[in-house]
């Protein structure tokens, strides 16, 4: 253990590390967020309190691509976008409230640094403008933002059939938006055809997080304890493969005939299906990129409720699983 960042009074619900500016932001159920700056002389992380001005717990936090601001989702049905005010030497928060009607579960920044996608418990995925004139933002119009819009403007609203939106992610170019919701669906929309939402109702348990592995494929992971690959074309989202293949142990052949029939009599089956064949043994809650070469993702990690952190190598998966297209 390198350092313990102890400041929060309640359960820490979100962490994000900005790689270029080397700052960590954490948010917790105590309705606060802290930005941690590393002091090389002492080797310690110095916390700086951020006043989010929310009256419910914070649920999720993400640095923007250029690391000059971060967005905090909360149970107060609003999003806090915070930026540093050098005059007063503190972090200021601005709220995006309308028309979010329930707890925010996930947030993702667009590569342009001023667009935000938000997934919440009111079964909707929305895109907002987070252009801050205080930070001299010079936004350009695009298919997501056809007219220059000020901070907090709702640019797009997408409904899932029903089900909390657990994870939302822009594709690497920012042209597509994928989200996963609690009705076991994965959804993708292209910014150029926003009324055509590509939905796939899966037969698996719901996903909690999603990560684009390339412009045409993404991995989703959740309550089935392992990541699944999905391929995206212009008209549909197609299931690719399950990315976790552990060798399945053959059934216990040492069972005597009598034991077999006794088990059949007692349980109605000869094998008890309680063995898990996945690397994670409980729900996966986060997926992050670990290494990239150019714009291709080489490694990604998953963390779950079983306390495990697993790193997946894309090339190794491609060779292990026949016909995998990323």
């Amino acid at each position, binding site marked *: 253990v390198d350092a313990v960042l102890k400041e929060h009074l309640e359960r820490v619900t979100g962490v994000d590390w900005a790689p270029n500016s080397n700052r960590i932001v954490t948010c917790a159920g105590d309705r606060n967020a802290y930005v941690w700056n590393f002091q090389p002389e002492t080797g310690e992380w110095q916390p700086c309190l951020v006043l989010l001005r929310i009256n419910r717990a914070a649920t999720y936090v993400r640095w923007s691509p250029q690391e000059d601001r971060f967005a905090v989702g909360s149970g107060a049905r609003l999003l806090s976008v915070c930026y540093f005010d050098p005059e007063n030497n503190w972090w200021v928060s601005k709220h995006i409230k309308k028309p979010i*009607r329930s707890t925010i579960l996930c947030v993702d920044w667009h590569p342009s640094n001023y667009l935000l996608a938000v997934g919440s418990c*009111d079964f909707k995925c929305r895109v907002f403008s987070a252009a801050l004139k205080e930070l001299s933002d010079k936004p350009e119009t695009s298919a997501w933002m056809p007219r220059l819009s000020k901070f907090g403007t709702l640019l797009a609203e997408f409904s899932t059939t*029903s*089900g909390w939106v657990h994870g939302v992610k822009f594709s690497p170019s920012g042209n597509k938006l994928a989200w996963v919701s*609690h*009705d*076991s669906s994965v959804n993708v929309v292209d910014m150029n055809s926003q009324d055509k939402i590509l939905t796939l109702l899966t*037969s698996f348990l*719901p996903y909690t997080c999603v990560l684009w592995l390339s412009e045409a494929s993404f991995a989703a992971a959740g309550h089935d304890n392992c990541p699944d690959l999905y391929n995206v074309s212009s008209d549909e989202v197609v299931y690719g493969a399950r990315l976790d293949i552990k060798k399945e142990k053959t059934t216990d052949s040492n069972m005597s005939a009598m034991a077999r029939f006794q088990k059949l009599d007692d349980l109605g089956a000869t094998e008890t299906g309680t063995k898990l064949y996945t690397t994670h043994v409980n729900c996966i809650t986060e997926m992050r990129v670990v290494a990239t070469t150019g714009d291709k993702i080489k490694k990604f990690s998953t963390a779950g409720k079983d306390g495990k952190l697993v790193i997946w190598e894309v090339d190794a998966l491609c060779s292990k699983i026949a016909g995998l297209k990323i």
Partner: protein
Amino acid sequence: MSKNVNSTQFRTVDVDAYDEDQYEDDARDDESGVQEVADRASQVKQLLNQTKSKDALKLALQNPPLGHKDSNVKQQNYETVLSVLKSFRAQEIDAAVEDLSNVEVDVLMKYLYKGFTANPDKSASLLLWHERAVKKGGLGSIIRVMVDRKGV
């Protein structure tokens, strides 16, 4: 004794209507499905009489009256579906479920769970349907029954 002359009009105010925290579903109060449900009921009956059970099943699972204001309409459709399900023999269920599309499997699941809650003791045949439907639709189809805000 003193008489209360102050106005008690405030007691008639609906406080909940002014509560900005209250969540309301996107309204979709369907009033149009009544005729369709009645038509479907008679058509399904015809198909069952001609022992075209698979076709009857597919028809019964079309366009359910989700979230309809009138519970009689929902009840009628439910009875239509149930009559079809009961007309199948155990061996035929497999083939019938195989033919269904993913959307139809989801609708079938919704009606199965409605059947479970309506008659918890007499659901043996429905359990058989459930097993086959899960084989086809997976756990996702069950999740969608739980998550659905507009009941079937």
